[in-house]
């Protein structure tokens, strides 16, 4: 009998703590709305007094959010386990610029969906993940100068009749990734088409290969990577948007932003940029 009562008590207390914990979480997150909980628990430094740049130097490494699933830009090589690509080379150069060593870097995987929340809660210092500079996003983060100029295009089957955005009419299904500008653009340029959005481009490409859509749309640079993987697909020649990629930092991180912009200028002046570009994209950057 006694034992039973004790259990009842323990369970009661457990429930009460759980409920109050839920109530507390509810309060704190609705107050801050962007959810800076991570900040408080993970990084013990007071965020107001110390700049991100100082934090990076103190920590001795730069933490960058990059894609892990994008051929040519940020792709985890299954053989070596290393993440490789255009964005990665740019990130390493930045680590060299700030800390003097390109290996003083930690790469964290982000997706189009997670990158802004991860930046804002302090998990990463900067985003270098094929991120298009848009007015909407400028409200959330600060962008560097353009580090890559892309344009949206379409990936279709070799024998497809689609050769331009004009061929995307009613009844045509276009696949893309959730949270991308590509999704918004295609809805504007081809409002009649059916747009399906997937977790990432790898899944969208899988769906395309399974015949679940007629075309996949995103920036041409990424499409070239996919066409390289599977020669049954080709990239439509025309691009129908201009997508300037920028490096994103937390809003108000002016100091870090200045260093990044300075770095990008040096990179272009030294010819190093052209080398990285050619290494991954396979052609010289258009000027």
């Amino acid at each position: 009998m006694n034992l039973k009562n004790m259990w009842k008590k323990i369970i009661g207390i457990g429930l009460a703590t759980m409920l109050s914990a839920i109530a507390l979480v509810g309060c704190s997150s609705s107050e801050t709305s962007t959810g800076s909980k991570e900040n408080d628990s993970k990084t013990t430094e007071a965020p107001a007094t110390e700049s991100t740049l100082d934090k990076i130097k103190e920590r001795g490494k730069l933490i960058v959010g990059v894609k892990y699933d994008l051929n040519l830009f940020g792709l985890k090589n299954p053989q070596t386990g290393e993440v490789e690509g255009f964005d990665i080379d740019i990130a390493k150069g930045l680590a060299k610029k700030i800390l003097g060593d390109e290996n003083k870097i930690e790469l964290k995987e982000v997706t189009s969906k997670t990158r802004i929340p991860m930046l804002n809660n302090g998990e990463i210092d900067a985003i270098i993940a094929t991120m298009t500079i848009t007015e909407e996003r400028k409200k959330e983060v600060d962008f560097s100068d353009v580090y890559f100029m892309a344009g949206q295009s379409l990936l279709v089957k070799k024998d497809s009749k689609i050769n331009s955005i004009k061929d995307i009419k009613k009844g045509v299904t276009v696949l893309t990734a959730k949270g991308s500008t590509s999704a918004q653009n295609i809805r504007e340029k081809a409002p009649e088409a059916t747009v399906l959005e997937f977790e990432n481009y790898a899944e969208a490409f899988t769906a395309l290969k399974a015949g679940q859509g007629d075309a996949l749309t995103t920036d041409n640079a990424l499409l070239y990577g996919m066409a390289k993987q599977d020669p049954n697909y080709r990239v439509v020649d025309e691009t129908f948007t201009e997508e300037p990629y920028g490096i994103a930092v937390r809003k108000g991180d002016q100091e870090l932003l200045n260093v990044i912009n300075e770095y990008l200028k040096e990179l272009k002046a030294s010819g190093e940029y052209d080398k990285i570009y050619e290494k991954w994209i396979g052609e010289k950057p258009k000027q």
Partner: protein
Amino acid sequence: MLNYSILIEHWDMYMQGFTNTLKSSFLALISSLALGTIIAVFRIAPVRPLNWLGTAYVEFIRNIPLILIVFVFFVGLPTIGIRLDSFTAGTLGLTVYTAAFIAEVIRAGILAVPKGQMEAGRSSGLTYLQTMRYIILPQAIKMVIPPLGNQFINLVKNSSVLGVIAGLDLMYFGDLISSETFVTFDVYIFVAMFYLILTVPLSLGVGFLERRLARSR
């Protein structure tokens, strides 16, 4: 406070998602109940090959992740020429998956009916199937209502798997709205509320049914 303007501005998307989640759950519920019952009968029927078939189905399906099954329907079937849209593929995957669990629940219910019932039915001239249909199953149903209710609630929540294959359900639109507005917490709280609108009445309904059937026993 929650940002209700998000709910109002994206009402259409929430509603479309809600409707599709409701549709998918409803269809999967009906068909998995039917399929699950058939498999349960297979498992206990006095025919060896049917036993094997039923056991193989249950052990195979319930021991792999739901998302894998859905992917088989979504990208696997097209390789042999059968193309299903994401909603259909998702709902089918959900049905196949849930049926394995329902089969186990119903089998347990049937086995809980005293053996004498079957013997009595058979000796009064009914066939095996007739005894099943008119004597065993009606008694078993009462016993399986609570665990079945659990499966149905799980089914509604599991329907969120459609979001991954662009099945236009609540979770899919939740993801879209969150990536459009850059608001994570509030958007998904609203998604959770819509799920509750489906699951809470379901569990209350199951509770009600349970009490009614208990009284009639």
